[in-house]
């Protein structure tokens, strides 16, 4: 009985920590974003473990998602594929429960596939509106929380 109890507890915690990290092309990422059109506003966050500002702003993005059921944050990691387990560990530590992606294309194809206007600088953010899925704001590099909040407000109401 005690063994079953321990197994049940372990399974519970394992499932809580079971981050789904999916290798993805830019097309897969765009299709995922489009799937939320009419249902949720979306923030696309392209990040890497080696990118200090990306790591700094990550908890804030997780909080945005947790606090708003009408908002989905699509996290796309761009570390090398052999960093897969480190990326997964980071996501677990951040308490991320949703599906997450890791780039599996060459930079040039991936960057242009996501947005031709993006130079490749990290972190990279695009905010899409809830109703029509149009871009309400996008930027490269670190920006203050207020810019995120303004973009989210617009995305939720447009």
């Amino acid at each position: 009985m005690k063994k079953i109890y321990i197994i049940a507890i372990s399974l519970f915690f394992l499932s809580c920590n079971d981050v789904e990290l999916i290798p993805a092309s830019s097309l897969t990422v765009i299709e995922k974003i489009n799937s939320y059109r009419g249902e949720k506003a979306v923030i696309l966050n392209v990040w890497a473990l080696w990118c200090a500002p990306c790591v700094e702003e990550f908890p804030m993005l997780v909080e945005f998602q947790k606090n708003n059921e009408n908002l989905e944050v699509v996290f796309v990691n761009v570390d090398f594929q052999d960093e897969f387990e480190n990326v997964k560990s980071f996501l677990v530590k951040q308490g991320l429960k949703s599906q997450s992606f890791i780039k599996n294309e060459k930079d040039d194809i991936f960057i242009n596939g996501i947005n031709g206007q993006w130079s490749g600088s990290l972190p990279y953010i695009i905010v899409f509106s809830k109703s029509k899925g149009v871009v309400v704001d996008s930027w490269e590099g670190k920006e203050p929380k207020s810019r995120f909040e303004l973009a989210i407000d617009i995305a939720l109401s447009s």
Partner: protein
Amino acid sequence: MYNILKYLTFFSLVFCSELEIGSVMPKSKVGLKTIDGDIINLLSVKGESGTLVIFSCNTCPWVIKWEDRYVDIAEKYTSKGINMIAINSNVAKFNGDDSLIKMKEHANKMKYNFIYAQDPDAEIANAFGATKTPHVFLFNQDNVLVYRGAIDDNARDAKKVDEAYLANAIDALLENRKIEKKSTKALGCSIKFN
């Protein structure tokens, strides 16, 4: 609401546009501070056959992965008339990791064989639409932009490069051939403007 959307779209477009291929080098007379304490400008760097400008810094992991190739490129092409400069526009870090002293230490450690200089107000980075490190701009002998973007397609390992974008562009420029890929992209660290 519509006005806010217009403003945000305008903001994104204005501040994310790289210098167009075919443009004449902007801000070529703006002063740059070299690690040797000299004030120079891009006109003084200009080579007989062209000028290679790389926006760079001391600490970006992707610069560190790629910078072995900076040295190889300078070694191979300076003698062929392509002069090279690495510009540091990380204004927010000029009192820290990207100070002139640390830049000099970094250049010595990595055996830089080209000019390394600060862009004091990031005026040149802004004029070029440079957003990241490394970010490459190649100009021909008339100071017209002929290539921009990435060094090659493998930051991690020079031996596993499939396409040496920059070297291909320089070779084509020197041989008066058409540059097949005039613009490429790679990931990089954002320039720390403020």
